[in-house]
């Protein structure tokens, strides 16, 4: 073991971690934005509306993320049409290709999580909304979505951590994220164990931060689920 290489290359690993952070943050934010309408369409009562989100989710959950990244990065660039289109400046960049693939992938998973949360709300609450005369939009805005937000948190935190680890695949399309940077350093030093260990520790720290944030948000959002704290007056 030669841990001096970890010290000398640590700043470069941190540069990689920064790229990883940007990739994960951007794709989960965009993914969540896309996921909401997909989830709502998925629970539509019309089978015609339901079929599109179903196919979308089926495709992106059913194929490996690596394949999706390769399709966006190497696949799209095979076509002259794509290269001459206005999208080429974006599709040319590996960073944006990764963002596109990650966003599509995570939005499919997130949509399913959202759908499950909305459907987990007791029917009684939906009926109550209708009884007091709320419109559909009001019902979703005031009751269902805020309620779903609380239910979604544990599963959604999971998805973000999965995305963090999935982002390592960005290294296959020349991006120098944490994994890509580690591999580039190893190509130089031939110390895979030391450098990968260091990269693993950085991933762990990022996960810990995500877990801590979610714990706080959950605590605030789901206060009503916390331990019951009722003062019983003393006898006498």
């Amino acid at each position, binding site marked *: 073991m030669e841990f001096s290489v970890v010290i000398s290359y640590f700043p470069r690993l941190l540069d990689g971690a920064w790229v990883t952070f940007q990739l994960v943050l951007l794709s989960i934010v965009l993914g969540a934005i896309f996921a909401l309408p997909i989830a709502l369409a998925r629970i539509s009562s019309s089978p015609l509306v339901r079929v599109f989100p179903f196919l979308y989710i089926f495709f992106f959950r059913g194929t490996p993320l690596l394949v999706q990244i390769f399709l966006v990065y*190497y696949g799209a*660039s*095979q076509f002259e049409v794509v*290269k001459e289109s206005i999208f080429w400046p974006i599709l*040319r960049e*590996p960073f944006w290709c990764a963002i596109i693939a990650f966003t599509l992938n995570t939005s499919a998973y997130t949509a399913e999580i959202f759908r499950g949360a909305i459907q987990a709300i007791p029917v009684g609450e939906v009926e109550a909304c209708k009884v007091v005369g709320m419109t559909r939009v009001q019902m979703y805005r005031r009751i269902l979505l805020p309620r779903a937000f609380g239910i979604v948190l544990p599963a959604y935190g999971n998805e973000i951590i999965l995305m963090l680890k999935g982002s390592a695949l960005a290294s*296959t399309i*020349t991006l120098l994220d944490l994994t890509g940077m580690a*591999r*580039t350093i*190893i*190509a*130089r*030093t*031939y110390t*895979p164990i030391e450098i990968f260990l260091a990269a693993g520790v950085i991933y762990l720290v990022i996960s810990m931060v995500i877990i801590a944030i979610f714990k706080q948000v959950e605590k605030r959002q789901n206060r009503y689920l916390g331990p019951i704290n009722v003062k019983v007056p003393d006898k006498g």
Partner: protein
Amino acid sequence: MKMKKFAVTSLIFAGAAMTSLSVQAADKVKIATEGAWAPFNFIDDSGTAQGFDVDIAWALCEKMKADCEVVTQDWDGLIPGLKVRKFDAIIASMSITEERLRVVDFTNKYYSGGLRFLGEKGTSFDLDNLDGKVIGAQRATLGAQYLEDNFTGKADLKFYDNQDNVYLDLLAGRLDIILSDELPTYNWLKSSESGEKFEFKGDAFQKNDEIGIAVRKGDKLKAKFDKALEEILADGTYATINAKYFPFSIY
């Protein structure tokens, strides 16, 4: 009682099996190659490794009278894999470099190469001013190292997992220039349809680049390989293999 007897017999059998294994292991050599570096090593349609490296490997095994197996492994996992004994030798067009010599031993060279730039026909570039140019190479190769050492900050450098992806991105227009070993690129220019749009830029350099077989540090296999190499060079086997891939000597 019965159980005990069973345990003892099975122990004896296991012991016998293990000794026979270690006897065999003496001439069993597992050789790794990459499989993405035509014409030196590539996977043919039936899924087996082929190419100059692989032919050399089999020729050497024949001389060494060893029971060989050729496996493929991604490029940047070759040296780590050798170190943890997943295989015993690397015959994958690996250049003998000081950095690699710190972790593995190399046999004498079995061919020599050089680096050369490649770009689209009709374009030109100035090595002293590469601002805004994107240069690609395979990660963990001499070419990548040369780019890192000489052009970090002077050009946009991109590193790939294998050479096929470098060509793909050159064709896609994401790369202006690539730097790679001259011989496989010579083969790509000659043999692939898309090769005709591109040409070598400038002369080959680092021609003292010697390609050897990597083995674990201190492994006796090195001496055996060196002896077998001498034999195939002397008896013309090497020349026959060479002629199969290149019309000139690459030794």
